[in-house]
């Protein structure tokens, strides 16, 4: 379970999150929607532990652990995974090499043995096949020269292999064509389980037709201003965010 209480965050003296509250239960898929600039990516970065963001108040508790006291890699080992809106390129490092390094680093911090190479390759091949990722892509340097869709698929591949308990998808649907959207969504749905929760950040109802959320939260000006069931997303699709922008002024 993830609990965020009264989170206040600023960057370079600019307040971005203003007392945000959010709870995501185990096994729950929570969607976050909201206008551009409302602080959705900031929220995902702060959960994952990016530097530069100054947390002035509040707490983030994942399964009883205070995330704000942990380094990003410790949070990852504790189960936090962020599928980036803009995945980074790592020149010269084959995707395979990166995957192995990441999996073994997390295993190490959890006190598990390193994966044997055959075991690792078996896992990667199985997961890559499901996401229709060709083998030669795994040999290429991570994200270097990948199309937008390929990068997003690679994020989901990492998510599948690292088996996190709390997954954040930051606009994973942006830049995906219909087929890629289907593949990625199926990949995410396959990972849904009673002890894994998701925070799905998106602008569009479109993604939520594929990844059907349990709850929908509307963010505006650094706060969750309305929460509801999946029908809330449809309502937003029809009416836009206009109603909620007013609450900024309020």
């Amino acid at each position, binding site marked *: 379970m993830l609990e965020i209480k009264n989170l206040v965050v600023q960057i370079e003296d600019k307040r971005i999150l203003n007392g945000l509250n959010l709870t995501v239960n185990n096994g729950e898929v929570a969607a976050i929607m909201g206008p551009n600039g409302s602080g959705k990516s900031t929220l995902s970065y702060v959960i*994952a*532990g*990016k*530097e*530069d963001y100054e947390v002035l108040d509040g707490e983030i508790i994942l399964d009883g652990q205070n995330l704000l006291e942990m*380094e*990003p*890699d410790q*949070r*990852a*080992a504790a189960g*936090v*995974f*962020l599928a*980036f809106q803009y*995945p*980074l*390129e*790592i*020149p*010269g*490092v084959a995707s395979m*090499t*990166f995957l192995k*390094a*990441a*999996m073994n*680093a*997390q295993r190490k*911090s959890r006190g598990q043995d390193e994966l044997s190479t055959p075991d690792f390759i078996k896992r990667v091949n199985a997961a890559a096949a499901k996401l229709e990722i060709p083998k030669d892509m795994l040999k290429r*340097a991570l994200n270097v020269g990948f199309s937008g869709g390929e990068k997003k698929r690679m994020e989901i591949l*990492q998510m599948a292999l*690292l088996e996190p308990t709390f997954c954040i998808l930051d606009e994973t649907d942006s830049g995906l064509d219909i087929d890629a959207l289907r593949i990625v969504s199926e990949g995410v749905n396959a990972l849904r389980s009673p002890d894994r929760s998701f925070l799905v950040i998106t602008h569009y109802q479109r993604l939520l037709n594929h990844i059907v959320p349990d709850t929908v939260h509307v963010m505006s000006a650094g706060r969750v201003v309305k929460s509801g069931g999946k029908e809330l997303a449809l309502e937003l699709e029809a009416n836009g965010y206009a109603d909620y922008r007013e609450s900024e002024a309020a």
Partner: protein
Amino acid sequence: MPAVQETIDQVRSIDVDQYKYGFETEVEMEKAPKGLSEDVIRFISAKKGEPEWMLAWRLDAYKRWLTMTEPSWARVSYDKIDYNDIYYYAAPKKNPAPKSLDEVDPEILRTYEKLGIPLREQEILAGVEPERRVAVDAVFDSVSVATTFKEELKKAGVIFMPISEAIREYPDLVRQYLGSVVPVTDNFFATLNSAVFTDGSFVYVPPGVRCPMELSTYFRINEKNTGQFERTLIIADKGSYVSYLEGCTAPKRDENQLHAAVVELVALDDAEIKYSTVQNWYPGDAEGRGGIYNFVTKRGDCRGKNSVITWTQVETGSAITWKYPSCILRGDNSRGEFYSIAVSNGMQQVDSGTKMIHLGKNTTSRIISKGIAAGKSENTYRGLVSAHRKASGARNFTNCDSLLIGNQCGAHTVPYIESKNASAVFEHEATTSKISEDQMFYCQQRGLSEEEATALIVNGFVKDVLQQLPMEFAVEAQKLISISLEGSVG
């Protein structure tokens, strides 16, 4: 946390001194009197049982050296070296010239064991595929203590032995080639080396022979206040091939030690020499105390047509590195290659690069240099590409990339290009980058620690060059790079 503990932790966390080879071996040594003089040179020559011409050659070099001044153009700074405060010869007292491994001081054998260098052929043979074998010449301070697989190589016609032995056994070959690539008066350090060189390896591969195994030399400086003046000469006769690797380590000491080597390569028609270096001399501590001054002249002469010389270097050690492995592309259609990874951390200073001198027609060269600077180090690439008037069709491609870790280090690129032939085509690319915070965060988000992430990104950065190393050394080099950068982040 109490203040004292905090200070200790802090110091520990910035300590770059991760050098794993800094132990010292206790063996009784015989040394020449301290300092440099004609007498000391005579002493060295006598110890080696050299012929008269060799002594004359040394003495001539010494006279010339006395008239020369130390170069100051490199981007490095250090206290003046007192050349009379150095021992120029140090050899194990017990059996300085062992005939077999059984005669080698067990303490020295243990040293190489600790360094992970196999000297016992039987042990190497057990469970190793024939093509994976490596013949080793082990040089301890001023003498070679063991050379493996000599007999087997001899059957193939390959001569691989300490140069001091070659001077006695193959004087004509040595005399013909010694100093023919790096002339006695080439530069201050090369001239010094010519006067006082002690040991190093000699390789001769006869026409048409592909050397049946990797050759390598491991240099170890052990004795205090002792300089190491290695001299290596490799000759690949017509149509032959040889791959050679050198490695080097030294104990941790507070004083600086001098290593002034000369390496000469000669490739005749259609011959190929691959020369790889994994340089891991003691780099000094985090404050810049101690460490090796590595002032080295390495040059290859593509003397014959269609010959190829490839230099690959992984430089992680030494307090100061001053080193420009070069190729003289004399034969028509000859090719020179230089692949370099130079890592500097702490207070290390590196000024390294290459020279590609195009003299023959249709000669080609390729330079790939990857400099990685961390800590408070300074890392300079200095390179010259030149085409002679007659070098029609000369081509060069140069790519110099620098990666900075932290913001207290420096990376510099100093390329010189001289072309006297209008048909020469020289291309030069250079980049300087930093590991971005976003890249770092991305890696950490996947569970990698800051250090693991740095090592991974650095390995990606140097991949093109690592691929040039013989397989078994590439892995070693990769580990070495990670170790050298430990403590560079955080």
